[in-house]
């Protein structure tokens, strides 16, 4: 047996995995090899140190902290879900109201695309005129659409905030208390 094989058997022996025959071979090798004797002594020292180490217990307040963190994550998840649903509703409503306006905008600005596709910058004047048309179109759309959209948009926002507050308040008021009381 060489020193490398001896080293492998030492490790296996520490893990309780070596066969009796291997242990005997190792003992024979150790009897005549001071280098391996020294390694075996060091490994045993380390093994005893780690094997005698205790579990470090969790502090007593940690459990309550963990339950509170889980309840908080639940609340945040519910609030995020509510907000997402309401935001999707608002976007759907806005799209429904904006679709005719967007179609008008596209037809009014279709010239810009044609100019760009036909060979790039034809003249600065052409682009400026299209930019002017686009600007005027956006201005008209905004002045026409803002007043009718402001009311439903504001209402949706208020409803979203109200429901969010209500759900968050309800979960804060009830669930964590119940859970923590059961634990304590």
């Amino acid at each position, binding site marked *: 047996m060489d020193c490398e094989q001896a*080293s*492998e058997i030492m*490790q296996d022996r*520490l*893990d309780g995995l070596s066969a009796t025959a291997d242990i005997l071979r190792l003992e024979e090798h150790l009897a005549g090899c001071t280098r391996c004797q020294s*390694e075996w002594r*060091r*490994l045993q*020292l*380390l*093994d005893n*140190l*780690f*094997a*005698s*180490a*205790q*579990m*470090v*217990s*969790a*502090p007593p307040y*940690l*459990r309550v*902290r*963990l*339950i509170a*963190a*889980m*309840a908080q*994550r*639940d609340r945040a998840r519910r609030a995020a879900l509510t907000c997402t649903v309401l935001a999707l509703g608002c976007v759907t409503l806005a799209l429904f109201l904006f679709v005719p306006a967007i179609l008008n905008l596209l037809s009014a600005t279709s010239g810009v695309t044609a100019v760009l596709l036909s060979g790039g910058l034809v003249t600065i004047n052409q682009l400026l005129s299209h930019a002017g048309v686009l600007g005027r179109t956006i201005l008209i759309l905004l002045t026409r659409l803002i007043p009718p959209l402001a009311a439903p948009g504001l209402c949706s926002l208020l409803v979203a905030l109200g429901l969010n507050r209500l759900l968050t308040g309800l979960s804060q008021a009830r*669930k964590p208390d119940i*859970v923590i009381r*059961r*634990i304590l």
Partner: protein
Amino acid sequence: MTDEREWIRLAQEGDQTAFSRLVGAYQTPVYNLAYRMLGNRAEAEDATQETFLRAYTNLRSYDLQRPFSSWLLSIASHYCIDRLRRRRITWLSFEDEIAASDETGDTTEIHLKGEFLNPESVVARQEQETQIQHLLAALSPADRAAITLRYWYDYSYEEIARTLNMTVSAVKSRLHRARRDLAQMIEEDS
């Protein structure tokens, strides 16, 4: 064990009280792993919290055939390994780790299993703990995890491999190398 399976089943259905029982049963094993790997109490508490939050979020994907402790310790190990790797990126050295734990007055609370210790024994235990943490801090994150699972949880090579997503031969070579390095360090220190 039957109780535990029932708690897990109930927790999977969204019962927070059942999950809180699992927290009570496993907080110390998870905390001990995190403390051994991260080396200080504050980070170990954060890691324990994050482990249970991840377990709570992914509880539906837990396979009941697998030991719950192994699944939970796997989450904790991976979280701690990631955290240690991020810490390396910020160039926090081993000396900083020790200094940080000293600054926070990090004295280890040892699970004494009801035994009485005189002041000398307490001091000896604390010195032993300091030496162990000093040795563990010299290892790479994955080696720390392997050594911790081997010595504090008595895991076999196969169990460590499953927990850390490694092959059995990789676990074996990591453990052997880590032990040789640590043994060398002990001699140099003494």
